[in-house]
């Protein structure tokens, strides 16, 4: 049966195109391209206000790179490098020489600027990026913000690591973004201000949102690019693209983050899993040019493993790299594997890219001049292995760590827990002076916790590190998966939280995973019913299957056949299903199937509903019986 409003849409069938539409089409395109159309001031202001709000939020969520100037240490491991159009300081210097009036360099590809040598303008470089890398024909730039980030560490040789610095030993500094008075709007100048007054050398940046098209409509894809000057501030210095962001892609790394060869990078996104492509490009020289693409694919997470340097390569110990992901449209040409490196022959619908630094083991690379590199941690060649627990989860761990079962003491409410501990120390030596351990627990007996939807995976180390124990001895967090609630604790003994130990813990936590579900599969009390992203069955923000109904957040699967003949269920109410029978009787139930006490005879039976939750990979799991 069709609702009235829907039936009345049929009236649209009575409208038809004018007779000359196709004839006009044969006369060719009539709308000219607009190279860099400028939106209206009001649009810019509104966009900028929204962007600043998002930006302030992003600062609290994503790391912000502290920028350094050319005059500081120039080693790859210590200097923030751009992703485009050059990726090294040498490349930046060649671009600068070209922009100053020199010849087009041969070592780096700046051919896209050949007819428009405007590397001195941030907007022009961003515009060329949109044309060349994103494959957009009529990009529109909207300035978001500009100003200065300062390094919160305040040291004379400030860190270029992510901001806020990761790691529980320091904790997130209570620094806040500040907009300078009198500089509101798109040209606002911002900085990071810390309560202890520390500062570092400022570097300029400018951010733009780029839309494909000139209407700023919802239909147009957009990205946000951060522009900066790697060689020096002010006019006369070249601009480059530092990073590219898409609100639906989380690359899982921050600018200038150091990655190890073999490390996995988990990229989360909310695009169609079949359309997202991702990879990491390592090296910026002919002798070191490595590429890795997706090697693990889940519904909304893909994984890329940082490549190792092959024998005979001339990769140095620290190599500039970038992690990227993009969504290719289905227009002509086909996307290249790496649009940043090769440009794009088709229109991309989304892109994110961020520069990182890859560190190879010292015995795997050619000797290099590392003078001036600030080495933050002593690398060690660690082999990793995998552990799969009987409870259904799997993690990666260093092969010199230990795994043992553990049981927690009974809680006041009668709950007992069992768990598995992964530790850096041999458990046969019960009183180590220092070390770290990670324990995953789940309740075995006691009050049953209401089942809830799974948390997204991979888990984030930052989420764990955000909630330290009061005594500084570690952290604890909870998560849900496969219909069960888990606990995850990290315990630190003595000075056990070395940088290597923390890196290992982060990788262990972020590698924790459960097997994907398949339709009809049963684990414990839960059976996978259907993948939720089968959007064709969705109605009213809910899922209607042939015989059952489910609404997100409700947690119950309900039979579609009401207990009397009539117009069928009405699921539009917030309190539960409602039915009007042919004979005029009305019945109401709660979502859990309990009938309303006021229901008349024949409508007082509880509904045969089944608890339902959502798995980590977006399956509807149903508990039968």
């Amino acid at each position, binding site marked *: 049966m069709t609702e009235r409003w829907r039936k009345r849409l049929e009236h649209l069938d009575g409208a038809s195109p004018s007779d000359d539409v196709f004839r006009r089409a044969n006369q060719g395109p009539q709308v000219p391209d607009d190279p860099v159309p400028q939106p209206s001031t009001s649009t810019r202001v509104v966009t900028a206000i929204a962007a600043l709000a998002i930006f302030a939020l992003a600062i609290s969520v994503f790391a912000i790179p502290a920028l350094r100037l050319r005059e500081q240490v120039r080693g790859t491991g210590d200097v923030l490098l751009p992703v485009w159009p050059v990726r090294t300081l040498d490349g930046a210097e060649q671009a600068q020489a070209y922009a100053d009036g020199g010849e087009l360099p041969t070592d780096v590809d700046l051919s896209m600027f050949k007819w428009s040598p405007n590397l001195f303008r941030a907007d022009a470089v961003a515009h060329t990026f949109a044309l060349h890398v994103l494959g957009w024909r009529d990009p529109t730039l909207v300035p978001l913000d500009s100003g200065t980030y300062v390094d919160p560490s305040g040291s004379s040789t400030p860190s270029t690591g992510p901001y806020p610095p990761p790691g529980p030993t320091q904790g997130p500094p209570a620094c806040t973004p500040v907009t300078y008075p009198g500089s509101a709007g798109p040209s606002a100048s911002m900085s990071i201000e810390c309560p202890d007054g520390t500062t570092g050398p400022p570097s300029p940046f400018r951010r733009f949102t780029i839309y494909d*098209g000139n*209407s700023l409509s919802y239909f147009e894809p957009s990205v946000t690019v951060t522009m900066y000057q790697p060689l020096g501030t002010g006019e006369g210095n070249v601009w480059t693209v530092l990073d590219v962001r898409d609100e639906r892609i989380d690359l899982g790394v921050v600018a200038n983050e150091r990655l190890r060869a073999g490390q996995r990078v988990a990229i989360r996104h909310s695009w169609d899993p079949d359309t997202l492509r991702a990879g990491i490009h390592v090296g910026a020289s002919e002798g070191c040019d490595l590429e890795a693409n997706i090697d693990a694919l889940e519904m909304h997470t893909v994984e890329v493993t940082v490549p190792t340097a092959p024998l005979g390569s001339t990769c140095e110990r620290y190599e500039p790299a970038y992690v990227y992901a993009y969504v290719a449209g289905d227009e002509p040409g086909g996307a290249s594997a790496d649009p940043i490196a090769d440009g794009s022959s088709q229109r991309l619908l989304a892109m994110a890219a961020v520069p990182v630094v890859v560190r190879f083991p010292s015995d795997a690379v050619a000797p290099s001049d590392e003078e001036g590199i600030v080495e933050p941690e002593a690398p060690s060649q660690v082999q990793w292995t995998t552990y799969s627990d009987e409870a259904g989860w799997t993690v990666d761990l260093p092969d010199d760590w230990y795994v043992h079962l553990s049981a927690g003491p009974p809680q006041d409410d009668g709950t007992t827990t069992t768990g598995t501990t992964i530790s850096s120390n041999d458990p046969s030596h019960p009183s180590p002076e220092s070390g770290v351990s990670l324990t995953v627990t789940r309740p075995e007996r006691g009050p049953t916790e209401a089942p809830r939807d799974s948390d997204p995976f991979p888990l984030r180390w930052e989420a764990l590190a955000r909630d330290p124990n009061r005594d500084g001895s570690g952290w604890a967090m909870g998560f849900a998966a496969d219909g069960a609630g888990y606990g995850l604790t990290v315990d630190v003994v003595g000075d056990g939280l070395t940088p290597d130990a923390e890196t290992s813990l982060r990788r262990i936590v972020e590698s924790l995973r459960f097997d994907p579900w398949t339709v009809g599969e049963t684990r414990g009390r839960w059976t996978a019913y259907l993948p939720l992203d089968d959007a064709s069955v969705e109605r009213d923000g809910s899922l209607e299957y042939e015989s059952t109904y489910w609404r997100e957040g409700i947690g119950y699967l309900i039979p579609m056949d009401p207990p009397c003949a009539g117009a069928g269920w009405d699921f539009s109410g917030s309190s539960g299903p409602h039915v009007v029978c042919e004979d005029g009787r009305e019945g109401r139930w709660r979502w859990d199937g309990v009938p309303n006490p006021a229901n008349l005879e024949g409508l007082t039976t509880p509904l045969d509903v089944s608890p339902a939750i959502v798995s980590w990979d977006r399956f509807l799991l149903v508990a039968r019986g």
Partner: protein
Amino acid sequence: VDDADAHDYGLIWRESGATIWRAVYAYAGGRRDVADDAVAEAFARAMARGAEVREPVPYLFRVAFRVASAELARRSKEDGEVPDIAVDVSSNGLPDVIHALRELTPAQRASVYLHYRMDLPVREVARLTGMSTASVKVHLMRGRRRLRDLLGAEDDA
């Protein structure tokens, strides 16, 4: 082979032209001239690109929506708001539907028309409009609620 011959756009026009046009017509809130211009431009661009266009119909939808979107934005910028032009009255009941559709945003209108009138699944609506499936679902939910209020929820039967 000439690129222009890669697809028979005359055939595509006869088979899908009216469907694409009605979707854009709904998107434009019943503004016939916007729909005419956008669809003509979409076909013109597709023909100009020849064999580069691998899937003509989705391409035509997306380009037509984009062109219509740009035109609506341009009019809004120039006039402060899109003028409420006369509604096509060639069909009984059409004016009421158009007036109701104009209470929706363009994205809601397009989503509702493609999903509820053309019976396209959400994923296909997303593909044709260039939106995410999540966005389409939100537009459908809001559009549906609004149309229920404006045009009635009860079954006609």
